[in-house]
């Protein structure tokens, strides 16, 4: 069966963007909401800087944690 591209993410998946928001609190909550909307497991705001009308933000989700069973390893098993 064809592997999902997500299975090939070695460890973390970061989403970077600029969020229009009224204040830092809203920006943070929007960042968390964004992670949920994108179905990112355990999305964490790595970086958020709010200035005036919006925030530069980086959200991270670990697709594979060290110690997990990595789905990208399956390629090594099949060949």
């Amino acid at each position, binding site marked *: 069966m064809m592997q999902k591209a997500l299975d090939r993410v*070695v*460890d*973390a998946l*970061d989403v970077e963007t600029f969020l229009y928001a009224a204040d830092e609190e809203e920006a943070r909550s929007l960042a968390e909401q964004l992670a949920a909307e994108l179905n990112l497991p355990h999305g*964490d705001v*790595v*970086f958020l*800087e709010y200035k005036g009308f919006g925030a*530069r933000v*980086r959200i*991270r989700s*670990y697709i*594979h*944690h*060290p*110690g*997990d*069973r*990595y789905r*990208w*390893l*399956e*390629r*090594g*098993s099949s*060949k």
Partner: protein
Amino acid sequence: MKKVLLAPLDPVHDNAVKLLKRKLSEAGYDAIAMRPGTTSEEVIEKALEERPIAILVSRTLGYKVAETLGRLVDLAEASGLREMTRLGVGGMAITKETGGELGFDACFTGELNMTEVLAFLEGKPVGLQTAGNAVAERQKPNIVQGFTYAFKDKEIETLLDGIVDQILEWVKGKTSPGIERAKLRAEMLAEGISLRSPAKVSLTQQRLREQYLALCDDTIRAFYLTDKLPAGVRWLAAAEIEAMENLLGSAKARYSPLRHVGEKPLFFSQYGTGCPVMDVMHIKVAEAWGVDGVLHFDPSWGAQCEGLLEGYLSHEHDGTILTLENLKFIRHAQEPATLWNVRGHRGLNTPETQVLGHAAGADLFKINIPYGSTAGGTDPQRLTVDGVYSLRLAAEYGIPFDIPGNDELSGVPPFKTFAGILIMVALGLKLGAKPIPKPLLCYSPYMTIYGRMDDNMIDMNIAKLMVWREIVDAPVWPGEPVGFMTHSPERVQSSMMTAVHAALASSMGVDAVTIASSDEAYSKGPISAAARVDTLRAVRDALRFQGSVQLTPTPRALTLADEIHDGICEVLKTVAERGDFVASICEGLLGNEEDGLYPGRIGAGTVSGGRL
């Protein structure tokens, strides 16, 4: 002289062709460059006249350009050129796939790589297949080569002599569970025995096992006696190890050093994700992006626990468990020329770590008694005894050891940290080992509290590097990593701070540099592979920007270097006068409570023998 025809096949741009012409001429080829706007027919006509060994086409790619390049290839075939002339294409937008689709013999993607171009001209296959060759031919660098270790500051040399003699006198006849386990481990390795061998138990194994377990903490004993794993640890399945080896078997990246000029500094990355398989992936990423070496980090609890585990073990938190199997697996995955450091500068397993590291193929150790026996570390008595034994092992194995100065992070001023490092330098030399001091380039609490870097971060860092050149002819390896406490979780900022520190160190002619990832300041999760790439890319470009330019110290940097130098002398005088190294640590002569430093307590009361 072999001829090479260079064709821009572009209406305007031919910069790549001009560059290539110069480089090929330097390499001894007769490079014939055609003008921009040359047609495919003109290229072939010229080739029929000149009979070059190769035609190299440089071109950016647009929709119809592909047809033009394809036509050139077909025309070359039609005119019978391909039997003796090979065709290569390159350009920023050209991909390997496009080159293949158009029927070229070689495709040069990304920035100009002369090694690849020359290999192609010499008739070797280019592309994925040559990737491994360059790596295999690369020699493993030797950081300590060429250094005399002669002291330029004779006063410091005399002071250190006295301190070292006192240390060696003090450790005489003393031992610890750590040293005894190291001896047992060495015996086990010599006998080919492991504590978990499922096969018939020999009398020797039985004896070694009993003796070893008697020297271990409960957690380790439980592992061997009842198969109980410490919290957060799991066995790695053979299939996982095998799958990773299979993955590596089919992938090899071309080594491309981070340095733009010269052979130094060597660049090191730290790893220790907890999982050896993930570590290997991170090491391969770091190697692919240009590191020369990697440093193994073990879990913090491993340093606080008497005894080491065995087998392929994965750990779900930071730090990868020190076992012979884990270490060998990690070493095996590295490129042969990659330098590998196994740290054991602190903790209760310092001597045994050197034994295992040596057995697994380590190139470098990491030992620092004053740093390891403060700030939540090991008891100073214990680490002094273990440290000296470890230095003897390093000397016996011929493995250099580096001495990190990370106690600065607690708030210790550089001159105190450096005095401690110097004691380790002298102690190592006395025992026949090769030390490598590691001054930390950082924005430490001492700097912020006393405003030493309020104007800039260059003068102090330059001073910290200069002072080493004034004192002793030894390699200097700023770490660990450079730019400590200047990083934020913002990846551009973080990568840039690492890059400027790396470039600064490089301009000062250091021998090696340990660099962070852009996740350095992110504490809520493990370092990601992508974060390693961020920093390595930034360092590469900073070094490209800087080239061989060297910085001239400002008057302020010179003053700061003098201050540090004087400070070191003062500290060493006090330690020498105190006449007791262990007491000097305990009493804060190398860093006191005000500096944020407290003597370590782990393993207190475990040293035996000699006069305590």
